[in-house]
């Protein structure tokens, strides 16, 4: 566009857009190390005291345990369902596959608030009140489409030839699946699980509808703490969350890259 001048303008704009996306989050991290007892500027010094206080706050630790348990169980269930469905969609010719794929991503086409209300009211009607079970069902259903999208995208790149070779060398379908297909699929499965875990860990929209009174996940705990005022503890908790939800996937990515380089794929 308009030569290099225009390109420079566009690049400048892009830098501003990235700053807009990251600066506020960077400020959360910065303020979590603030020695001052108010969660705001000015910075009076560098301190880890808010992280120490976090580790001693029983409510926050409880919220953390709830979030981790919920996230891990959600990831396990929704990855299992998602991997099976993705295998069917990628490996077989399914009649009406267009409709099936739309069905499979339907939970993210419905606004999350509506999904939350529908699930809450229906399961309550069946006698399942606001509970951990309800939270788990809710998290599974809205992480499932994301798992399917991620796993499908990666499954496509695995060639069937290798499996056919194994079969022609005398491996049974079962042996082929466990010794050939599954190891090849592992990165896709892990990516799906990590995605489900992160989404579940971060969710608040549905969680506020489904959680029983007194039970908090980390995001709802932060939300409840915001009602008073922003404290350095919230910023510290935010920092821990950022490190976990950004650090873990990055670590996963790095491990996956190293593994695939070693294998020479």
């Amino acid at each position: 566009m308009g030569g290099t001048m225009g390109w420079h303008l566009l690049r400048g704009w892009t830098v501003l857009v990235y700053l807009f996306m990251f600066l506020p989050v960077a400020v959360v991290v910065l303020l979590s190390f603030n020695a001052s007892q108010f969660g705001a500027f000015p910075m009076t010094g560098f301190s880890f005291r808010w992280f120490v206080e976090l580790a001693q706050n029983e409510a926050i630790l409880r919220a953390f345990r709830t979030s981790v348990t919920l996230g891990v169980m959600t990831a396990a269930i929704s990855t299992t369902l998602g991997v099976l469905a993705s295998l069917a969609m990628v490996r077989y010719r399914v009649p009406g596959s267009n409709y099936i794929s739309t069905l499979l991503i339907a939970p993210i086409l419905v606004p999350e608030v509506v999904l939350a209300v529908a699930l809450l009211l229906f399961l309550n009607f069946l006698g399942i009140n606001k509970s951990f079970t309800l939270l788990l069902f809710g998290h599974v259903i809205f992480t499932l489409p994301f798992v399917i999208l991620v796993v499908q995208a990666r499954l496509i790149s695995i060639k069937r030839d290798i499996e056919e070779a194994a079969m022609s060398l005398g491996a049974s379908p079962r042996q082929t699946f466990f010794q050939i297909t599954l190891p090849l699929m592992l990165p896709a499965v892990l990516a799906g699980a990590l995605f489900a875990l992160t989404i579940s860990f971060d969710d608040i929209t549905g969680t506020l509808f489904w959680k029983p009174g007194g039970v908090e996940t980390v995001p709802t705990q932060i939300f409840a703490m915001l009602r008073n005022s922003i404290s350095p503890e919230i910023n510290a908790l935010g920092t821990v969350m950022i490190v976990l939800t950004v650090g873990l996937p990055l670590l996963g990515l790095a491990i996956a890259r190293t593994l695939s380089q070693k294998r020479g794929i």
Partner: protein
Amino acid sequence: MSVEAREARQPWILLSPALTAIFLLLFVPLLFIVVYSFWLRTSTGADQVGFFLDNWREALSDAFYRDILLFTLKIATITTLVCAVMGYPAAYVIARSKGNKALLLLLLMLPFWISYIIRTMSWINILGVSGALNTALLWLGVINEPIQMLYNQTTVILGLVHFLLPFMILNVFVSLEGIDTNLEDAANSLGATRMQAFWQVTLPLSLPGLAAGGLLCFVLGAGTYITPLVLGGPGDAMFANLVFEAIITQLNWPLGSALSLMLLAVLGALVLIYNRYLGMAQLMKGLG
């Protein structure tokens, strides 16, 4: 059983757990709240089973609900437009950059992994009475007293743009990436200026991505109740806040059902129109 029959049955066995879950945890519950919306909340607090039109009459005729629905659509429209204006050039730069494309893309994915509540509340640190901006302005001597910049319509839009911008950029990027750059060069060699080549070749070809990003921004923006609670004032309630109020605070589940279905109808109509003209494939490209 023949090999073919087994081959034909296998995908359905693999699909059945996921499809059962979606059927039981999404479609049946949605049908259930359709029924529920015709029940009646009685003064004793119990729900009376039956076929009453009261909730629908209230939801559809009360000016209070209509105004908040219009306000919600207005906020979502502004948010989507701002996302498009901010995001399109950025997506263009990422798609056309050579050296640091991988880094820019990785950075673009990071916000998806940072909790929505944290990104939303981060603006309190920036715009709050003792936030970064007030502190800076006081220090510079521009103002003598901190100003309350938070808790209004603008900060709601700001929070939503911050939350939804990555969706827009990613979708536009995916469609720009799919355009053969030779097309622009061809237009240039045929005498078009770079500007003309962009407006007449690249932009039209990237419209599906812009539409997909716009749809996501609009639907996600119009369905939120957390952002107005954290960054809005008392008068900035959006439609999803009404749903939350009815279901969680007032425990008026029949009315809450009717309100949820209204929101679903409005946003679902948009998704259907989109699907009719552009198809779901574009949307899935951006999401995967």
